């Protein structure tokens, strides 16, 4: 009997303690998650710092920072949707934002309201167009940062060989042939041949310079065209001067090691090229120090130039934009908290801290930020190393960058679904590695695209 009283007493004390704890908790703390595609640990630290600052300013909101690889974002989102555990805010490529927008997971009203609050005219208009829903004036997300793609090349090698800069199809192929010396373990160019997004980014650059497109302005699929076939045939020819086997962006290390003449890359490479220690950190052959070309060349920045525009029938530029999307969490308090966080991320100080994680790689989507002295004064001095002129040249490219998604000012979100399904990368792999005929590969890709659009 005594035991029963003791046990009952303990139970009452525990319950009372729990009740006191619950009653003393600060009321209504809203918890949201922010999914970022900046998965590298140093970037995570910076973003976490921003989140901590935000939480200090908004004690009623808790933000959980979750790193998600861009390629895993769709599967993670499906899992989160099934578990009713959606994030409040996500960061992803404009293609991904459009694809998710089409699936109806975004708070479009919230995003449109935020565009107005931040100032519609402050955004680069080309960028804003890339996240507009088919209903004009409504937005799936907000442009946050973007990069421009170009061919980075060894200007000293080009000068020595008397070659013109790689800004036309002809010049690129000629240079790739000239510098392709496999017997010396040296290669002409790096273009994507592995079935990953990088391949599509390289291919799109060429396709845009030849007038190739996925859709016409009426929204009809026109991928199976003369322009795309020419591009794919040219691409397959150029891929012969790649290092052996299928490759993705990681093979850029061969350039840093002095074993390659040209490579496609975004402006993200700027800090790697400029800072010897950063470059040394990205080399993958430090274990084989006896191999030639394994030391970092400090003159690499001076000897490297970029060609952002490629011309065949017209000048083509390519870039990619990363946007922020407000996910509809079916809870007004959570949706409002996510809007607050988004607003905070656009405040000049937090915005510049975010962009400085990769100077040159992450370019602002608000015009006024690009001209701010605080922005041009990055902690590693990268912008100073390249000079204001070169930086402005690159950011100017943001206004003219094209993509398959926007045709004559109209947005086709289906293009985002095609991108997410990696149809073009798989087509490129089939042609360059499996040896499939380009015509057959385009027919295959068209069939896949029709399935994706139809579904």
């Amino acid at each position, binding site marked *: 009997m005594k035991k029963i009283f003791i046990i009952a007493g303990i139970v009452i004390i525990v319950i009372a303690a729990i009740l006191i704890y619950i009653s003393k908790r600060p009321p209504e703390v809203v918890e949201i998650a922010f999914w970022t595609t900046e998965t590298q640990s140093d970037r995570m630290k910076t973003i976490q710092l921003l989140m901590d600052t935000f939480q200090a300013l908004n004690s009623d909101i808790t933000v959980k920072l979750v790193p998600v690889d861009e*390629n895993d974002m*769709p*599967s993670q*989102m*499906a899992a989160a*949707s*099934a578990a009713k555990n959606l994030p409040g805010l996500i960061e992803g490529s404009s293609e991904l934002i459009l*694809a*998710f927008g089409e*699936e*109806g*997971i975004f708070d479009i009203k919230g995003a449109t309201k935020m565009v107005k609050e931040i100032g519609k005219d402050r955004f680069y208009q080309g960028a804003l167009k890339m996240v507009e829903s088919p209903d004009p004036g409504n937005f799936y997300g907000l442009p946050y940062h973007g990069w421009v793609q170009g061919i980075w090349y060894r200007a000293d090698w080009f000068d020595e060989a008397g070659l013109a800069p790689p800004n036309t199809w002809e010049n690129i192929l000629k240079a790739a042939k000239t510098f392709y010396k*496999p*017997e010396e*373990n040296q*290669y002409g160019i790096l273009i994507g041949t*592995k*079935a990953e997004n990088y391949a599509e980014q390289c291919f799109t650059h060429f396709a845009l310079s030849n007038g190739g497109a996925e859709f016409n302005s009426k929204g009809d699929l026109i991928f199976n065209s003369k322009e795309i076939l020419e591009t794919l045939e040219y691409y397959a020819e150029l891929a012969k001067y790649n*290092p*052996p*086997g*299928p*490759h993705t962006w990681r*093979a850029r290390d*061969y350039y840093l*090691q002095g*074993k390659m003449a040209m490579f496609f890359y975004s402006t993200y490479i700027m800090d790697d090229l400029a800072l010897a220690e950063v470059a040394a950190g990205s080399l*993958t*052959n430090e*274990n*084989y120090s006896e*191999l030639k070309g*394994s030391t970092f060349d400090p003159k690499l920045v001076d000897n490297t130039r970029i060609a952002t525009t490629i011309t065949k029938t017209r000048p083509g530029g390519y870039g990619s934009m990363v946007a922020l999307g407000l996910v509809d969490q079916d809870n007004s308090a959570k949706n409002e908290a996510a809007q607050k966080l988004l607003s905070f991320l656009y405040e000049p100080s937090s915005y510049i801290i975010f962009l400085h994680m990769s100077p040159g790689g992450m370019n602002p989507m608000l015009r006024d930020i690009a001209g701010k002295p605080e922005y041009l004064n990055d902690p590693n001095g990268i912008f100073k190393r390249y000079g204001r002129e070169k930086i402005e040249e690159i950011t100017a490219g943001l206004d003219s960058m094209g993509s398959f998604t926007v045709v004559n000012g109209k947005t086709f979100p289906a293009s985002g*679904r095609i*991108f*997410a*399904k*990696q149809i073009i990368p*798989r087509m490129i*792999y089939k042609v360059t*590695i*499996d040896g499939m005929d380009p015509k057959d590969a385009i027919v295959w890709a068209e069939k896949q695209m029709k399935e*994706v659009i139809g*579904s």
Partner: protein
Amino acid sequence: MNKHAGLFNKMPISIEQRESRLGWKLIAPSLGVIGLLIIYPILYNIYLSFFDVKLTGEKFFIGLANYEKLLQDTAFYGSVLTTIIFLIGTVVGSTLIGLLVALLMNLQFPFRNVARAIILLPYFAPIISVVFGWQFIFDPVNGIYNHVMVEVLHVTDQRHNLIGDPHTALLVVIIFDIWRHFPISCLLIISKLQSINRDQYEAAAIDGCGPLGRFFHVTLPEIYFVLGTLVILRLIWNINKFEDVFLLAPNVQTLPIFTYYAAFTGIIDQGFAATISVVQFLFLSFLIYFYVKKVLKW
């Protein structure tokens, strides 16, 4: 019927019936867990395969459309063939090498325990570091394999990307899997080898059997069931193997990799993914049935 009659009437029940009831009660929690974790997902998976599932969770019944789509896809048949080659190569390879190493490790020699521990390393090493190691070895520009082949031994004057080239990637993946998993085969075989009575070998030797004869007449019959079990386990593991293959060479499209590309790239097609899983499940069930009934004759 008799056993459970006591459940429905007031008749006194026998000890046997009581024991039977107790038995059911004792296994009820396990049955519940198995039902929840195994039977329910399988049934739900079959159910999903008849639907088009949207990201928002909405489902639309589409009958056999997912199955038609799958069976009309030529890449699917290619991946079935790749899976069969992968299964035969890895199961036979890892079992044979496991057997050979186990026989060797069963002999008496100095530092035998150290040697046994060392051969287990490939199995225990984290997959991601092992895969990167192999990728470094076969890197076409900086890898040690090409360096040795081209610059040291001059076997060939061309550098090859063995992991990237679709003609050689499957072979590399098979060798990688054998290397990584032979230790577990070896471990299981050794444990059985140690329990074989030495008298049997002596008797066989008296009957005039040489080393080979002793192996075929004593060792093999003794470890037959261990080998059979190993093969079944390896079949089940390897047909579902994703990470080893995908991390090393994503261009080798075995069934799980095919499923990933077909259903999990882009917006997830859960209905189609469920369909492939059902087909994969049937394929595996058939393979095991055939193996158990026709090969092992259990």
